[in-house]
């Protein structure tokens, strides 16, 4: 066990909360969050917008011993003094500093987003924080229609949430299909069709270029009349602090297998961190990093070797799961695609292990496929195919005379057939007198016994063995 240290975390998002939980009782933890709200589950924001979750219900619990400072924006890291400086010029000393600053949304190059006074046009919304969510939620009742800029996971979630709230919603995606960083064109096309069916029009290969009084102008000349514009077109790691402090920063803050930056007293986790070539942008890897860092700071021998990610679209009426990076993963592709039913299921398999997967329109066996993916299970040759095919319903069962019908009393179908009536069966075999579960089967056997036709072999549906 290591000695007690002051661990200061810049950020109070999901990764920070997870880390604080893991360090309870081991180190003194301070969270510096620039938002005024207590920490909350960012993943559930679209559910709040949709109305299925109460905003209070997404608050994350923190151990009572954690020193949470809200509205505390860090402006500088003083590495020599081992202190961070807040916007109010006060300083917080640390033994270990953890950067969990997350990502910041990128503003797409659309003219007219920003008004002459430097503020965003009142129709324009980001969707990153609880505050963004509240502001958009308040704008919904006064709006008739909305355009979501960005056809990624967040964009589709917001689009569906607004659709469910009754807004006439459109999606603009600059790439040639939806979810282009996760899935292939076939899957994207199915999604676009599904969205259309749900009342949301999709414009792919089209860029929004200007916001005018009438609406959003696309580069193909279309003008989408709209009361709301929601920007969901991606984000980038928030690295400004780290960069100013002279830490090694590429796309994100570069970390090693202990989530350590180029300063051994400073770590980085979550969306702001870059491990190898990987910058994640999802909660599950951020939590894995937080859990691992907590164990490392507690003195355990652990090393981070990257994360497996499962991305799920949380949107009513749209079924999408993306495991790993199916567009770039190397391996053999096993695929079942059915444009007629609107389903597309694809596994990327290397040495028998599922290394990536896309499931669109049909999530059956998602639980099992995810287990295999997460655990690196080595599958048999025909197993990936079997996993993609739906389960076939059990056909009618013909019971031979020696098949057991009543497990409680150990009675075979033949013994039942030898009985004259239900009362006779109960009396002589005790069938149906235990758990009672065989009563329908016994009645059917007896009924067929008295009916004309073949007496050998009886067809029963769904009888348990």
């Amino acid at each position, binding site marked *: 066990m290591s000695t007690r240290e002051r661990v200061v975390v810049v950020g109070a998002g999901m990764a920070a909360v997870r880390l604080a939980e893991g360090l309870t009782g081991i180190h003194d933890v301070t969270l510096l969050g620039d938002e005024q709200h207590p920490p*909350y*589950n960012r*993943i*559930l924001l679209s*559910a709040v917008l949709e109305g*299925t*979750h*109460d905003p209070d*219900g*997404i*608050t*994350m*619990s923190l151990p009572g011993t954690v020193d949470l400072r809200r509205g505390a924006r860090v402006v500088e890291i003083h590495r020599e003094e081992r202190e961070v400086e807040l916007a109010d010029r006060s300083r917080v000393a640390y033994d270990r500093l953890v950067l969990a600053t997350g990502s910041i949304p990128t503003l797409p190059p659309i003219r007219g987003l920003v008004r002459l006074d430097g503020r965003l046009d009142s129709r324009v919304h980001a969707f990153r924080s609880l505050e963004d969510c509240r502001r958009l939620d308040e704008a919904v009742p006064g709006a008739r229609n909305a355009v979501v800029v960005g056809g990624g996971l967040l964009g589709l979630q917001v689009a569906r949430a607004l659709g469910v709230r009754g807004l006439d919603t459109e999606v603009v995606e600059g790439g040639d299909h939806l979810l282009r960083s996760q899935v292939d064109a076939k899957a994207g096309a199915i999604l676009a069709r599904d969205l259309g069916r749900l009342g949301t029009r999709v414009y792919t290969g089209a860029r929004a270029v200007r916001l005018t009084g009438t609406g959003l102008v696309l580069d193909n000349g279309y003008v989408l009349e709209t009361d709301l514009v929601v920007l969901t077109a991606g984000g980038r790691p928030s690295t400004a602090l780290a960069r100013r402090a002279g830490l090694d920063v590429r796309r994100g803050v570069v970390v090693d297998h202990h989530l350590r930056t180029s300063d051994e007293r400073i770590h980085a986790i979550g969306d702001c961190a870059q491990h190898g070539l990987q910058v994640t942008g999802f909660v*599950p890897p951020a939590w894995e990093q937080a859990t691992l860092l907590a164990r490392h700071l507690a003195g355990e021998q652990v090393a981070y070797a990257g994360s497996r990610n*499962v991305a*799920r679209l*949380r949107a009513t009426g749209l079924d999408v799961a993306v495991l790993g990076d199916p567009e770039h993963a190397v391996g053999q592709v096993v695929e079942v695609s059915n444009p007629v039913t609107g389903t597309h299921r694809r596994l990327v398999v290397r040495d028998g292990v599922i290394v990536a997967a896309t499931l669109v329109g049909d*999530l*059956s066996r*998602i*639980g*099992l496929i*995810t*287990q*295999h993916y*997460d*655990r*690196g*299970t*080595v*599958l*048999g040759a*025909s*197993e990936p195919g*079997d*996993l993609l095919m739906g*389960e076939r319903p059990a056909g009618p069962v013909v019971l031979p005379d020696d098949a057991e019908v009543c*497990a*409680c*009393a*150990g009675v075979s179908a033949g013994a039942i057939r030898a009985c004259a009536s239900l009362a006779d069966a109960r009396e002589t075999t*005790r069938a149906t*007198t*235990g*758990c*009672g*579960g065989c009563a329908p089967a016994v009645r059917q056997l007896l009924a067929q016994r008295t009916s004309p036709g073949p007496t050998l072999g009886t067809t029963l549906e*769904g009888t*348990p*063995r």
Partner: protein
Amino acid sequence: MTRTHCPYCSLQCGMTLSRTGQRTGRSLEVQPWPEFPVNEGALCRKGWAATALRGHRERLTSPLVRDRATGELRAAGWEEALDLVAGRLRELQGAHGPDAVAVFGGGGLTNEKAYQLGKLARVALGTSQIDYNGRWCMSSAASAGNRAFGIDRGLPFPLADIERTDVLVLVGSNLAETMPPAARHLDRLRANGGRVVVVDPRRTATAERADLFLQPVPGTDLPLALGLLHLLDAAGAVDEEYVAARTTGWEEVRRSLAAWWPERVERVTGVETAQLRECAALLAGAARVTVLTARGAEQHAQGTDTVLAWIDLALALGMPGKAHAGYGCLTGQGNGQGGREHGQKADQLPGYRMIDDPAARDHVARVWGVPAASLPGPGRSAYELLDALGTDGGPQALLVFGSNIVVSAPNATHVASRLADLDLLVVADIVMSETAAMADVVLPVTQWAEETGTMTNLEGRVILRERAVAPPEGVRTDLEVIAGLAERLGSPIAFSTDAEEVFAELGRASSGGRADYAGITYDRIREEHGVFWPCPSTEHPGTPRLFGSGFATPDGRARFVAVEHRGPAEPTDAAYPVHLTTGRVLAQYQSGAQTRRVRELPDDGPFVELHPMLADRIGAYDGAPVVVTTRRGELKAPARVVSTIRPDTVFVPFHWVGANRLTHDALDPASRMPEFKVCAAAVSA
């Protein structure tokens, strides 16, 4: 005609024994007792064949002593055997102290035996080292119940109450096979318009009767409960009025739920979000919800927390204490309930009193007529006790009553090696069980129907098994064996061998305790179809339903407890890529010492249940042998290829030697329950 109850599971089905033999030609025959409300005359094949062990050729009828010269067991007289045992016990205690002798009991022993066994340990032997196999049964539910409700009674209501609930959730219970007559209540519940949800890694006979079946990865029932609670809270289905009036701790639980959004729950449990939402909708729309857990949820290193999570769910919905609703545990062994209440648990004295509570010690010592200071303190829990046998500082002698440890303990090869290192192993049993076969002294005892005693069934109903026939020559009752040993050990007090007398003493010892039997008599049990504890006086009607007006906590409120998912102690990996889970089959019972010897009960030996996809992967065929390996052992048995099991899981029944050579001995920190229900395994054809 003698009214009694089945010798097997916790349902304790009522039956009558007749000596006419008109049906089977047996000299003692089982007949229905339709008036007894728990089973209304229904029995499973184990019950119907219950008298088959009477006069069985493998029945032990003479004490056996291991001959030092040949190493073989030879017949001995009772005096010789008991003198030998008592003498050796005193020698070992003289050399190593009182705790050099340990006692291991069972959840199948009557209340009277359990009580006397505890007294034997604490008074005649003066050892703190006593525990019992019930620790491996429902102990996680017991510790969760104590924590949440301030009391541990498996069902706080009669079982038949479930017929009028709206949604019944069975978590890790296969009652249609493990206690078949109980399933009749399930069918009536559905006939009344209620719905049944079954949670199990296998689509069991019970799951076949469910309206909704959830099939989680073994060891993930806890996050499943939190995921459901997350959705219920989000949907506004929490009964805020009840939570405010009758509970404490909800806010902390509520805050912990934000971490269990459906997609995360799906990734951890393997239960698809659509099913999770369907289940939550079912629960949210029901006026009366009953949640019952059994071994599937409880036999884990996080079993207590898993049960607490499901209790949290029941509390959030405002169910415990409401008619035809609430939470309960389906206890497994015949006297799993009573067996833990009267003093064979390492930390308890009769009446569910805690052994480290000075007032409890005073009361019990007064009833026993010994100084309170002479009573030892708490001892080791079952597995820890066995793990310490024959080690430095551990017990050097063990007395076993009503348990077949070699088959039923987890990590059984290791446990057998501990037994082998003992100076003295004494086993009281009716047949030569696998454990008796290792003993230095085997004491043949009476079985069910040859003796009288009470049991407390899964509902907390105290019932009476009456003696119907005389025991064979040469055997003694456990009460006689205990009394004989106590006397030879120089016990300061006498031990009665009359069951009714012992029960009356037990009543006095339990008086004022949580499990108060003071007002229960044999006559009342006969007249009232059993009496529910607590029953503090003969005028008291007994307590079929608990929690109507308050919980058994100091402030009368139930406790929400926030719990975190730790996951199985042994996760799968490349070398051991599948989950192993264990359980029962209908025709056998526990270690099989009784049922494997009954010819009417099919005994095909152990088998390995696996999914066709897994079978294809390893090249296994239905009926052909496969090998299951864990870090602790190996089992070769025929494959049963069925599509009803999760494809990442194999199942082995535990009635035979083998299954528990594979299982893991990680323990729950609160209940000390071993992790029987999940470990990492490899399977090959």
